[in-house]
């Protein structure tokens, strides 16, 4: 039920953050932030594109366990998703498509916060699917 989606720019600052339920927001941000190290680690391993890798936190939080999924595009924009279970490949694919649509908007400057309603709707739909 709990879920968080974050879009992170190349320079490792967030472009878009959305999480449900809202009381876990701070916790999610923290987890996402720490997971950035892992992303860098994997991308430094020399793979051309980090398609998808899992960060399984396991007993990090004894009461709950989440999986943190990461996904990096060719322009080094990262999507990080914190979920407890889901079909992440599909979600990342949709996220990426939605993100490409946002990029096609000439009024969107790369590096801006994402304020596209279409993107919001996509994220909402996926959250509802998962929860």
């Amino acid at each position: 039920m709990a879920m968080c989606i974050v879009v992170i720019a190349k320079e490792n600052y967030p472009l878009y953050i959305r999480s449900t339920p809202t009381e876990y927001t701070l916790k999610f941000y923290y987890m996402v932030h720490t997971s950035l190290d892992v992303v860098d680690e994997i991308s430094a391993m020399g793979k051309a594109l980090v398609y998808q890798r899992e960060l399984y936190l396991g007993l990090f939080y004894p009461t709950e366990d989440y999986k943190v999924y990461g996904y990096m595009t060719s322009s080094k924009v990262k999507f990080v998703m914190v979920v407890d279970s889901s079909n992440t490949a599909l979600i990342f694919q949709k996220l990426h498509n939605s993100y490409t649509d946002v990029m096609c908007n000439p009024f969107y400057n790369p590096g801006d916060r994402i304020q596209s309603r279409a993107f919001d709707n996509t994220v909402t739909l996926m959250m509802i699917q998962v929860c």
Partner: protein
Amino acid sequence: MEASAGGGCGAGPPLLLSDGEQQCYSELFARCAGTVSGGPGSGPPEAARVAPGTTTTAAAGPVADLFRASQLPSETLHQITELCGAKRAGYFGPTQFYVALKLIAAAQSGLPVRTESIKCELPLPRFVMSKSDGERRIGNPAELLGTKVQIPYLTTEKNSFKRMDDEDKQETQSPTMSPLASPPSSPPHYQRVSLSHGYSKLRSSTEQMHPAPYEARQPLGQSEGPSSGGPGSKPLRRQASLIRSFSVERELQDNSSNYLDEPWRITEEQREYYVNQFRSLQPDPSSFISGSVAKNFFTKSKLSIPELSYIWELSDADCDGALTLPEFCAAFHLIVARKNGYPLPEGLPPTLQPEYLQAAFPKPKWECALFDSYSESMSANQQPRDLNRMEKTSVKDMADFPAPTQDVTGDDKQALKSTGNEALSKDVSEDPAVNSGLLPPPPALPPRPYPSQSEPVSEGDLHPQLNRAPSQAAESSPAKKDAPHAQPPSKPIRRKFRPENQSTENQEPSTGGTASAATVKPHPTVHKQSSKQKKAIQTAIRKNKEANAVLARLNSELQQQLKEVHQERIALENQLEQLRPVTVL
């Protein structure tokens, strides 16, 4: 574009409403609460926005009717009431009401009724209710929910205005005909509100009352009823009279036209204006305008970047980063509407869809012929024009345009520049003067306000001019045809290039300056001078436009290719991942 509501009452989750939603909800709230400030049709959308912090509450009776009219099952409505906090608070304040409306919209969209559902953008809730709702409230503002509603409903039916009565009876007798007989329409005031999409008079559905779940709210509503009855009656009466007036209109209106579409319908004059603007950016009407070109152009409208971004999102249906002609018209229309104060819709209205626009407005023939020849000449020579060609002073008759004796491209430019290129130098130095000098002689053209905004002289005129643009377009189309009687052969081309002239005049004064290195012959009369200036500018602009168009087209093609390749890549990577063994830490 979003305002947060519900802060005043402090109950429930923070709620983000768009302008359209805000307007809709405040009107609905006003109808339920009977507050004067939120009365229907009261002024522009900005002013009519009911402050969420008001202490008025909605009477439970009308609220229940409204909810019932949303055609959701009673169970859902129950859930909604609980969630929005009305039960907890014991009344329907603005916060609760708005949250409830949002939840109704969510439920109607198929989303589960939860507070998370309302965080996203939703279409407006749909209420299928009869116009006599208002009358009902007039007759019995203190009436409560439940079975009692049935009685006043029937009694007011007798008291209702005759026309409504007849319609009602017709519809009760033949509910199957109701879709035809009940096009949603509203007083002109409602035009500004993208209110619920389904205000149709489906009497059969409104007769399905759900009294049971709402009886529980009777004690809640009771205290509200009498208090709202007094002040509520007057605005409600006004509302009812409005209802009556437009129901008269409704008979006359085209049944297929939805009042919601009125601000979103592109008239013929507007269409021509948009097409001309399109051509000024992209000579080939069947091609598209790339994102960067469109961005520069739309930025001149001085709307905020987020709004423009949203408009682009709405209008670029295929999300390819480029605007075809119908997409461009839709975007332009949205911008014009926004500048005139209309709130932006949640989704692209049906009358602005590309398919609709393409079907509704075939290209006028004279434009086709002209631009076919022009585009031929364009494609014939893709190289950027040499500015030195403009040195030729002979004025080629415009009629020679389709049949050049020389290289087609050179012909184009010569035909346009005439002996006016000398004026370019003056033009560059006296841009504001030129601009104002150019404006009077040609017929009043809509392009004028738009691109001339960077001119200090005309900047103040931008907004009023833009607002008059649609009306001016009407003058301009007949005016265009009369236009330069002095040079009838050049009329079509001049018309074509005037927008170019004015839209790019300020972008390329420098290039015009270099072009004016050619011979300069002074012309005594102001009129000739201005027309020559115009031609000179047109030629300079034309040259750059051609170059730009080529590059822009290349750019957009490459962008599309990039996007396709990108998608392919995602698909392939997906496959790869599926084949790769899963590694679990």
